[in-house]
């Protein structure tokens, strides 16, 4: 990464915690499989946020202790979970009706790329790989009231994931509202990416150097 050494990128868990801080009480939230699922661990129980798992669980709670597993209760990542007090079950068509009908306040997904026009590419890195597998990503991206993306700012080889236009196959068009990376928090606005905050010691110029799309500071 071409960032000066004084700057310390956030870890995955720090990123999840940073995003969790912005989720207000009372929101209904779907967390994509992988890193986004960890956001739930950083929302304190007393701040009631209702997490949905698209396989028909509304009110997903944390993993059970090993001796208290309900083997019929998993999340979309196929991990054992619990049902929080007040939670409920529904079938897949009802579950996705909820997602597609705009009832989720927020969905958090990982991504390969986010474009400055809000496009997201998160399900396929090429057109010639192994069999295509989209899961619920397109439904979530198109259906939630707002979509936040949690991802590293660059690829392992240093290429920017915040781009002018996505080069990977698209998941949905113009839907991303905010991006939480290991270097910054950015809004997607009508004028492109607007930086809300950066990790300590980082300047806008530094951030621009590792970002393909043009950046500006957000009007807060």
């Amino acid at each position, binding site marked *: 990464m071409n960032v000066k050494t004084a700057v310390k990128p956030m870890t995955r868990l720090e990123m999840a915690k940073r995003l969790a801080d912005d989720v207000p009480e009372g929101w209904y939230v779907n967390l994509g499989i992988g890193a986004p699922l960890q956001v739930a661990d950083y929302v304190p129980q007393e701040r009631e946020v209702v997490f949905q798992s698209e396989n028909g669980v509304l009110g997903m709670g944390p993993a059970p202790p090993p001796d208290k597993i309900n083997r019929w209760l*998993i999340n*979309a990542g196929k991990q054992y979970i619990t049902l929080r007090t007040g939670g409920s079950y529904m079938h897949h*068509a009802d579950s996705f009706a909820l997602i597609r009908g705009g009832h989720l306040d927020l969905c958090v997904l990982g991504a390969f790329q986010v474009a400055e026009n809000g496009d997201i590419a998160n399900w396929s890195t090429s057109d010639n790989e*192994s*069999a295509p597998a989209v899961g619920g990503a397109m439904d979530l991206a*198109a259906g939630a009231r707002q979509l936040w993306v949690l991802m590293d700012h660059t690829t392992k080889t240093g290429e920017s994931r915040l781009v002018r236009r996505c080069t990977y196959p698209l998941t949905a068009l113009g839907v991303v509202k905010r991006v939480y990376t290991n270097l910054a928090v950015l809004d997607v606005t009508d004028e492109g990416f607007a930086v809300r905050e950066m990790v300590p010691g980082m300047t806008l110029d530094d951030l621009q150097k590792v970002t393909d799309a043009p950046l500006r500071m957000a009007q807060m």
Partner: protein
Amino acid sequence: MINKIVQTMAEAMAGIRDGAVVLVGGFGSIGQPNALIEGLIEQGAKDLTVVANNSGVGYLGLAKLLDTGRVRKIVCSFPRTADPVVFERLWREGKIELECVPQGTMAERMRAAGAGIPAFYTATAVGTKLAAGKEEREIHGRKYILEEALHGDVALVEAWEADRWGNLTYKSSARNFNPVMAAAAKLTIVQSQHIAELGALDPEKIATPGIFVDRVLHVPYGEPTVT
């Protein structure tokens, strides 16, 4: 007396034809009717189209069915689960056709089949490569694509409790695709962990009413494992 409970797997599987479209419940292995899948393998129908969220894990259940070479095509949202060895091999060798469908679109297409809706518009997949070849239409300023109902000849369903009218309940997240598929197929076959007396299931809690069910086989399979 209406009695949809059958005593043998052979009765449960009777009449499934070559070329059938078979809807298979479950999300991963939870809610997946593994005994019925075994029964279908035994029964021998071939040239099948299978509709299921995933494409099987290891060499069990759905993967075992695929491994028989009797599945011509699979319709699913996420063929890549933990260990999709059989599917990946068949797919790379060009021996199985894959229709990759967004999970919600897949569920809604089957719900439409059960509800008499031949086609509907959705925002999911607009502008993506999964919209290729689909009609696009702007309605009140937003773009949508047209999706068609997805009907099954047969549905294989796993339930928690069933009675002789075919009323079903499910357990926790094992409900998933099962009620949707039960309503979307011409012939719905259920494996149920428990058999209940008629009237024992709470009428407010029945998740699949018997009208959608043709046959019930009692399969006390115990606890599933996540795969």
